[in-house]
């Protein structure tokens, strides 16, 4: 105190200078944490006001959201189970985004992946479970991959907008699924709920030991990290980002943009296809219309909130998983309608997208030069 008081000018001059050095060096990274974090806080405050308008105490709301999502070990498992499919479906949007493509058809790839994985399991009945499971992974990823490859191919060879085509392919995938499940693949015993035959209890992949979270979470984490490495630490990823940044420049330097598009689309679809395989092999045990619950669509939200960064997808998916997990508690304890969770998701989405405008504009994070 005394030194500062004695020499205010120096202290003021030195401290910000040191800060500026630190902030300048890490400014971008700090922005990536600070801005979405602030956007989230703003969204929660807005949602609190919204809830207060309905005569509920916002503090109760925040407590129940925390309690239902992260407050107990059970809540954590609930959150992680719900996050697992979202990580995989978010990658289906985030990978093509590196190329500047907006793919929103992860739901279709998930359904086709589930259908392919189920077909593989049903074809290999009687084989050792490990063989069946590996075949399901390969079939699920290939099926989903080929599905998004269709969008990539349509874009590359026919100039069809990939956003529209991938979205429309979702409805085709759902129609194919319903057609097969209610037709040739139907288990005659599934009277009032048309479904395929079960893949068999032995072929289920089960849960991570000590938890009741299924292995889909681990698959998601591995693929998210692998995607991050692929995009930021390989020449392939670099090429993809160059093409995404400026497609003409990429062509001029001799990059095979078409090959990049097709490969990335296949990988993206494979991630969503794996999500479908996991839903079959860890949750439902067979394919039926229950698979189409919108994991693919929520994945789009996750990818955009994560700014298409595969690593950021992990915490964002857990956040959304937590919001969904606590939604039940909000209904039961506060008497809020189910739609309130959707309202919150919408507010977060808008808030984070709007905060995009702040990048590079926060004064104290900018360098002096």
């Amino acid at each position: 105190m005394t030194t500062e008081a004695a020499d205010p000018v120096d202290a003021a001059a030195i401290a910000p200078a040191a800060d500026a050095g630190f902030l300048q060096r890490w400014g971008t990274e700090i922005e990536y944490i600070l801005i979405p974090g602030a956007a989230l806080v703003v969204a929660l405050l807005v949602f609190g006001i919204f809830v207060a308008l309905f005569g509920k105490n916002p503090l109760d709301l925040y407590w129940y959201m925390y309690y239902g999502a992260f407050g107990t070990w059970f809540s954590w498992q609930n959150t992680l189970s719900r996050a697992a499919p979202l990580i995989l479906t978010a990658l289906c949007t985030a990978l093509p985004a590196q190329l500047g493509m907006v793919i929103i058809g992860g739901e279709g790839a998930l359904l086709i992946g589930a259908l392919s994985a189920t077909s593989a399991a049903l074809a290999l009945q009687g084989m050792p479970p490990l063989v069946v499971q590996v075949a399901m992974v390969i079939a699920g990823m290939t099926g989903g991959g080929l599905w998004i490859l269709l969008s990539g191919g349509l874009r590359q060879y026919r100039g069809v907008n990939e956003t529209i085509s991938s979205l429309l392919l979702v409805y085709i995938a759902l129609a194919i699924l319903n057609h097969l499940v209610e037709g040739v693949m139907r288990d005659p015993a599934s009277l009032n709920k048309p479904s395929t035959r079960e893949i068999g209890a032995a072929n289920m992949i089960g849960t991570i030991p000590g938890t009741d979270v299924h292995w889909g979470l681990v698959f998601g984490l591995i693929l998210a990290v692998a995607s991050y490495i692929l995009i930021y630490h390989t020449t392939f990823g670099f090429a993809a980002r160059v093409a995404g940044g400026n497609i003409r420049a990429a062509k001029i330097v001799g990059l095979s943009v078409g090959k990049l598009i097709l490969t990335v689309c296949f990988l993206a679809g494979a991630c969503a296809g794996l999500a479908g395989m996991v839903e079959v092999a860890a949750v439902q045990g067979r394919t039926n219309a229950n698979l189409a619950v919108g994991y693919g669509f929520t994945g789009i939200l996750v990818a955009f909130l994560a700014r298409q960064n595969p690593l950021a997808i992990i915490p964002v998916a857990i956040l959304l998983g937590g919001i969904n997990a606590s939604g039940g508690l909000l209904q039961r304890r506060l008497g809020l309608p189910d739609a309130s969770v959707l309202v919150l998701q919408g507010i977060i989405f808008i808030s984070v997208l709007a905060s995009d405008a702040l990048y590079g504009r926060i004064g104290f994070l900018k360098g002096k030069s």
Partner: protein
Amino acid sequence: MDFGRISRRHLLQGGAALTLGAAAGLRPAFAAETTIGFIYVGSRDDYGYNQAHAQGAAALKKLPGLKVIEEEKVPETDAVEKTIESMINLDGATLLFPTSFGYYNPHMIKMAAKYPKLRFEHCGGLWSEKDPKNAGSYFGYIDEAQYIAGIVAGYTSKSGKLGFVAAKPIPQVLRNINAFTLGARLANPKATTQVIFTGDWSMPVKEAEATNSLIDQGVDVLTCHVDGPKTMVENAARRGAFVTGYHVNQSPLAPKAYLTGAEWNWEALYPKFVKMLAAGESIPNFYRGGLKEELVKVSPYGEAVSEPARKHADEIKAKFLGDGYTIFKGPLKDNKGNTVITAGTERGQKDPELEKMDYLVEGVIGATS
């Protein structure tokens, strides 16, 4: 904010109830305040399937010593497992009603096996010996009420053309279409029922299209079997057609057009279940019944229902409530001319053959596939 204390108290209560319940059957579990959880697949004010269950839950709320918790819009995935566990772990629920068909297998079965001391009651599932003993399935023979509604519709229709907006060609739906048609032909032997399948349980746009297209073809009385009859009822009433309802009483939506309807009577059944448990009796694992057993009911007649229609309908209703009445009896032909029930055969409500129904009776215009 003392949520911790509240939830802990509930947990302790639940735990104490469990231990006692284990020692002396389920009786003590219902001695203190009991928490009962209801899970709905859609919105609980849908004027349909979910609202019928919510009305049952509301009837339980009026009983002393019961705490009813509800969660809506829970998909038929592991989300319902998590909701069940959340109700058990965070709210101390000891009796659960996951009410949607797709919750049964594998989700509710898995939870019943995991929590063997709690009671699970499912609507519509087919409980079999290999399923856990603490799980049960109940369902009502609502085709009895559809048969009565058919009689009323047959008398009211001037064109003799009736319309049926249906979700999927599964046994439960086909049985309603057939019962409705047989009832109508009791009143008017020349009556026909044109059926349109929308393909899924909640497809408001397709339901509206189907309603309009049926009326365009000369249909003047409509009914339906979808999750939310609201769309059909409101659109038909707007076009000047009459309707018979389904799931719950939709007369508030169309007071003039509403003739009668086939309703669930869960507000009678659920208190009965709770009283059985409180008295130390066990609920039969496979619980079925119709009008007589008060699982289903017929809506009060609307003003447009003629005197002969009321008389005939009441007469048949009295038979259902009295010595019994068989809807599906030979000789019965399907709409392709094949005999499906031979002369002299009576298929009573509990006949397992009826659970596998895959035909439309003579007089129905439409196909199952």
